[in-house]
C-alpha cells in the first residue's frame, strides 16, 4: 500500500516518471525546474536507468527522439526558453510519430524573462509550437497529486497515440511541496519495444523512423494519417474539471495554478454571498474541451465567461473561439511571474457580475 509522501513538485514529477516505467532522462539545466534533473541524476542509477545531461536543450530533445525511436519510455524536463529550443525536435518527433514526454515548468517571458511562475507558453504548446501541421497533447495539472497522476497519463497517452505529450506546469507547481501518493509502480521490463521501433532488424522488414517524404502525395497521405489521429484524440481524450460550471451565471475558465486559485476564490464567493459563479478548468489544454465550452455558452443561464491566466491572454482566444462568443468573454491576466491572489480574482469576478446585470 502506498503512502503519502511530502515532496517538491519538480521531484515528484521525476519520481512519478520512474514509477510510470520511464528509465531514460535527458535534460539541460534551467531554472525553475533544476530539482527535476537533479533528482533524476540521483534516482536513475538506483533503478538501472539512464540520466544524461545533454549539451543543450536542442540535443536533449534529439536524444529523446533516438531513445523513443528505439522503443523506450523517455522524458525531459525544461522551462520556457529551453522548450523553445526543443520545438524543432518536437516537430520531427510528431512527424515521425514517436512517444515522448516533455515537462515544461513555465516561467515568465518573452526572451530570458524571469524565473517566476507563468502560463505564457499556452500558444506554443497547444498550437503546435514548431513548424508543420502537428499537435502536442498538452496536460495541465493544478496541484501536486494531479501532477503525479498526469505523469502516468502522459506516458500512456504518448504510447497510445505515438505522439509527444507536454505536461504544462509552472514555476509554482515546480517549487511547492505537497503530500503525494504514487498509485502504481510499473516494471519497465514488462514493456516490449513496439513493432515499429529500431531495435535491429531480426526476422522482420527494416524499420524506419522518419518524417521525410519528397513525394507530394506521399507526404499528404502522411499528414492525413496524423490529422485523423488528432481527430480521435480530440474526440476521446478531453479532460476537465467542472466546479459548478453548469449551474452558474458567471463561468470562470482557468487552468493549472490559476485554476486552483480561482477555485478558492469561487468557493469563497459561493460561501459568503451565495454567488452564482462556477469554474471550468481544462486539464487537457490540447485537446481543448471545446464541446463543453460551446455547451456552456449555449446555456441561457450562463451570462458571461471570465478567463484568468498568468499571461497576457492566450487560452482566452480558445474560450472565445469555442464559445463562439455567444456570451461576453472577459479576461484577467498577470505576467512577469506575478500570481494573483484569490482576492484579486474575486474583485475581477465582481466587476464581471456587475456588467452582466
Amino acid at each position, binding site marked *: 500500500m502506498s503512502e*503519502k*509522501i*511530502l515532496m517538491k513538485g519538480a521531484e515528484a514529477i521525476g519520481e512519478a516518471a520512474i514509477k510510470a516505467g520511464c528509465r531514460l532522462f535527458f535534460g539541460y539545466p534551467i531554472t525553475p525546474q533544476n530539482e527535476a534533473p537533479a533528482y533524476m541524476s540521483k534516482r536513475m542509477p538506483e533503478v538501472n536507468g539512464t540520466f544524461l545531461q545533454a549539451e543543450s536543450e536542442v540535443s536533449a530533445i534529439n536524444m529523446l527522439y533516438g531513445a523513443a525511436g528505439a522503443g523506450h519510455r523517455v522524458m525531459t524536463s525544461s522551462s520556457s526558453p529551453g522548450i523553445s529550443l526543443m520545438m524543432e525536435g518536437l516537430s520531427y518527433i510528431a512527424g515521425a510519430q514517436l512517444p515522448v514526454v516533455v515537462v515544461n515548468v513555465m516561467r515568465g517571458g518573452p526572451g530570458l524573462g524571469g524565473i517566476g511562475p507563468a502560463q505564457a507558453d499556452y500558444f506554443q504548446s497547444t498550437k503546435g509550437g514548431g513548424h508543420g501541421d502537428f499537435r502536442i497533447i498538452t496536460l495541465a495539472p493544478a*496541484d501536486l497529486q494531479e501532477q503525479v497522476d498526469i505523469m502516468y497519463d502522459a506516458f500512456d497517452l504518448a504510447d497510445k497515440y505515438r505522439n509527444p505529450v507536454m505536461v504544462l506546469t509552472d514555476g*509554482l507547481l515546480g*517549487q*511547492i*511541496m*505537497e*503530500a503525494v501518493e504514487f498509485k502504481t509502480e510499473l516494471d519497465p521490463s514488462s514493456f516490449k519495444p513496439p513493432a515499429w521501433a529500431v531495435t535491429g532488424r531480426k526476422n522482420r522488414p527494416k524499420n524506419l523512423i522518419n518524417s521525410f517524404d519528397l513525394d507530394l502525395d506521399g507526404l499528404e497521405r502522411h499528414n492525413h494519417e496524423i490529422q485523423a489521429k488528432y481527430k480521435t484524440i480530440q474526440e476521446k481524450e478531453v479532460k476537465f474539471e467542472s466546479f459548478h460550471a453548469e449551474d452558474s451565471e458567471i463561468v470562470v475558465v482557468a487552468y493549472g*495554478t490559476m485554476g*486552483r*486559485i480561482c*477555485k*478558492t*476564490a469561487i*468557493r469563497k464567493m459561493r460561501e459568503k454571498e451565495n454567488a452564482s459563479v462556477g469554474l471550468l478548468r481544462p486539464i487537457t489544454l490540447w485537446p481543448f474541451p471545446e464541446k463543453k465550452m460551446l455547451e456552456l455558452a449555449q446555456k441561457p443561464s450562463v451570462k458571461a465567461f471570465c478567463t484568468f491566466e498568468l499571461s497576457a491572454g492566450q487560452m482566452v482566444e480558445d474560450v472565445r473561439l469555442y464559445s463562439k462568443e455567444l456570451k461576453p468573454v472577459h479576461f484577467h491576466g498577470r505576467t512577469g511571474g506575478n*500570481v*494573483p*491572489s*484569490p*482576492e*484579486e480574482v474575486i474583485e475581477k469576478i465582481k466587476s464581471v457580475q456587475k456588467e452582466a446585470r
Partner: protein
Amino acid sequence: MEIELLAAGFGGQGVMVIGQFMAAASVKENKYALFYPSYGPAMRGGTANCTVVSSDEPIGSPIFTAHQNVMALNLPSFDKFESTVQPNGKLFINSSLIDKKSDRKDIECIYVPSNEMAIEAGSNLAANIVMLGVFLKLTQFAKKETMEQVIQEKFGRKGEKIVSINLKALDAGYNFV
C-alpha cells in the same frame, strides 16, 4: 481547520526548515499540507520566505494577500511583512535580532528571544526551531510528539547531538508561552 504561516528571514536562518517541518508534521498526522518557498536572487545571504498551510481539508490557493500568522526572523522581514498579518492574526518576532515593537493593536505579537534561547539549548543555529516550538504551542497545528519525530527523522543523519539540541530548542519554545 486551516492554519497558515508566512515565515521570513535571511538565507541561513532556517526559514525553509520551519516551513518544511510544519508541512512534514501535518502530513504525518494525515492532514493536507502545502509549502511554497520563495527565494531572493542570491543562493546564500539573501532574504527568503515561505508560505506553509496545514489543513484538514484539501488546500486551495497557495497565494495569500493577508496571513493568519507571520514569523519574522530578522528586521527586514519584520518591516516587510508586519502589515500583511490579518486582523486578529499572530506575529511571531525574533526579538534577539529585532529590537522594534509592532504598533499594530489588532494583532497578537509574540516576542521570542530565540537566539539566546537556542544558545541555551546548545546552538545558536536552533533559533528557528525555538520559533517553531512557540508557533506549535500557540496554533496546535500538530501534536508535539509528531514534531519531535520529524526532528529526529530530519536531523537523524547529523548525529545524536544535533537531534538533542533541536529537541531542547523545540521544548524551550513550546514552554515559552
